């Protein structure tokens, strides 16, 4: 088996080489399976590049390379198409005098580090602007565009039967960053349903629902044990603690959302 793999590997490698030698299409993409050592080297290069960037570039191009007095490098097509400094390098070493950029005397290795830093920034922008806090955390004042009065009125009429600003919600605005606070009041997912399961014998089990599909119900019982039954064999009374939130979620207007957030943001 092992031998087979080696032989097959050689055969395939030969095919790859053949393709390359024929001047045909480029062989197998970037080499190597995910390589922790290479990743670490890249990260180290990006770190060194970050330091160089702070010293030489960030005054004009911004701390995160999104520009300032100088160009936004994240939105730069040239930066994105650079592989190893072949495009960025000449700009750094020659400057762009007509645009007010002086030349910087960096070594090839230093330029490669700056490129590594910029590439890490591109990755952050492409992926993390969607998910992470960097670099566009959403400040509370941007969300708090409603009025406290309207938010409080909505809260008093729709939320106060379960929640209290001096009880469970006391200091809530301190606990969560602004978008989390908003998303959580809209729908605080993660609270499991509970069930009371009644067997044909009349025996009852109560617990947290672990599985509830067409075929089985399973709970973590109050006795600490896992229990499951065919769905058709038992009666299950299920309580979703988020039912009221789910119902309200369908009714909120954008203005309601802004007002409620503005009010909750005062609970510090």
């Amino acid at each position, binding site marked *: 088996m092992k031998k087979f793999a080696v032989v097959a590997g050689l055969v*395939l490698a030969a095919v790859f080489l053949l393709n390359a030698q024929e001047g045909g299409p480029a062989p197998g993409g970037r080499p*190597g399976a995910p390589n922790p050592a290479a990743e670490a080297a890249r990260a180290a290069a990006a770190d060194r590049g970050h330091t160089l960037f702070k010293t030489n570039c960030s005054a004009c191009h911004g701390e995160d390379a999104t520009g300032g007095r100088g160009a936004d490098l994240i939105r730069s097509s040239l930066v994105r198409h650079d592989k190893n400094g072949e495009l960025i390098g000449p700009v750094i070493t020659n400057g762009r005098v007509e645009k007010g950029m002086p030349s910087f005397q960096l070594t090839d290795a230093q330029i490669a580090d700056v490129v590594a830093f910029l590439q890490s920034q591109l990755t952050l922008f492409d992926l993390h*602007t969607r998910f992470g806090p960097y670099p566009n955390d959403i400040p509370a004042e941007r969300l708090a565009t409603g009025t406290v009065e309207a938010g409080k009125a909505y809260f008093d009429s729709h939320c106060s039967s379960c929640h209290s600003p001096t009880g469970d919600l006391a200091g809530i605005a301190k606990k969560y960053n602004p978008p989390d606070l908003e998303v959580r009041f809209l729908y605080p997912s993660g609270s499991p349903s509970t069930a009371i399961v009644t067997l044909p014998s009349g025996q009852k089990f109560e617990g947290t629902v672990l599985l509830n599909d067409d075929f089985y119900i399973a709970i973590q019982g109050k006795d600490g044990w896992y229990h499951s039954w065919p769905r058709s064999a038992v009666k299950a009374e299920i309580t979703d603690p988020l039912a009221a939130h789910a119902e309200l979620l369908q009714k909120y*207007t954008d203005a309601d959302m802004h007002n409620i957030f503005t009010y909750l943001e005062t609970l510090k």
Partner: protein
Amino acid sequence: MKRFPTLVLFACSFAAHLHAQELDPTKLLKPPTDTWPTFNGDYTGRRYSTLTQINRENVGSITLAWAFQTHSRSLESMPLEVNGIMYISGGNEIWAVDARNGRQIWHFARPGAPLGGGNKGVAMWKDRLYMTTPDAQLLCIDAHAGKLLWQIQLDDPALKAFGGVAPLVIRDHVVVGTSGDTADLPGFLLSVDPMDGKVQWRWDAMPKKEDTVAWNSWPHDTDVVTRGGGMTWITGTYDPNLNLLYWGTGNLHPVENSEARVGANLYTCTIVALNPDTGKLVWYFQSSPHDTHDWDTVMTPILFDGTFKGKPRKMLAQANKNGLFFVLDRTNGKALISEAFVPANWVKGYDDRGQPIPDPDKEPKPNGVLVTGGVGTNWQAPSYDPDTGLFYVNSRETMGVFYLTMPGKSAEGWAGRDFFLGSKSMLKAIDVQTGKVRWTADTQGRGGQSGILTTAGHLVFTADMSQNLVALDAVTGKVLWHMYPGGAVGTGPMTYELDGRQYVVYLADSVAYTFALPSR
């Protein structure tokens, strides 16, 4: 271990006869029975098989015929079955498996290439297989031995382009797209020669200046039109009589910023009809004009013929990620039906071709905006059953909150953030004559992310949110069979008949499960 040399001998000594294992191209033109020769089973994308051996009377007794363990990561691909051989793909690998008994025939794995999931399947032409890879290459592989014949670079992985889409073979064209969701990544379709990979034509999702209508659907005070969008993630469909290829395109960048790209932004989030011999655009239907919510239009455009309001029509139906169901006249791209199949508050109305008009109030805002309709379904294939006239789709009702984090014309990347709250998954059966949902199977979160297969046995095969494989009555939606395979279904089921026995195949996690009626 012992088997391998034997197989090599077998492969060598019988090489002369192996043309019998080639794919007969006429198989692509009929509903799949003994062969599942392409991603969608046939060109129509219906994923409907005329096989009836497994039917609603006996499906409860189907049992495991065999399983094949790839020892890989979770698979998202659709296997092919051609002349008794199943081809299963994932990342950078293909397994050829005996479709009778699940024994491996050969295994192709690229040495040294990075692994990655997301492969949707292979295509076949004569005795060759074609697959796209995580590093955005198209490989051509000899189907009897699993040997690489050639490869071409489709797109630039340094710009975060990747492969995965199952190519589509139309006569002597291998049509292929690429995936990715970053700036500076313009989408395209490429047609290459199946023999040597030479490019025959290329269609670009980002328009050129000569294409006035599309060009003018972009602003020209920024360079946004020269940058990226309109990726071609999922295999399209083909009408051999009209000689039209139908394919959907993805979203654009900056994703959630409207201001940087005022206009409809053709041909992103669009169903395009192309001539497969030239790559020339014949018509388009933009399902999300000026998309600001990441609503790719890559869901399968399903083709079927019939009468619509008393008139014979050639139709194309799509359940879109944006929550809308469209039935188009596929000769000209005009909508016969544009109708929400889940609540969709971002739609202000429809234009005279049935394209939605987005409500600017529901574009992402700095202080957040509540949006319904989003990710109403995803790329996992739906199915159309001509016997019931129903279009089956695994749908989700969601409430999204969308924040614009990078306003202004120079925004880059995602430019916003979105959260989907309290989603409710359900399988919906939509009447293609009205666009109305005939029935919904929404108990216990049925629906999920699996694709769907329908058969003339009056069955709908899919998987639910709890990862159960299920078969439902196509008319009523009643569950008739279920099985838990111990992992998630990444794509949908397929079926084929061999030696008079019908098999239904699911890939769950890294295992292929094949079910049939008990053997006699």
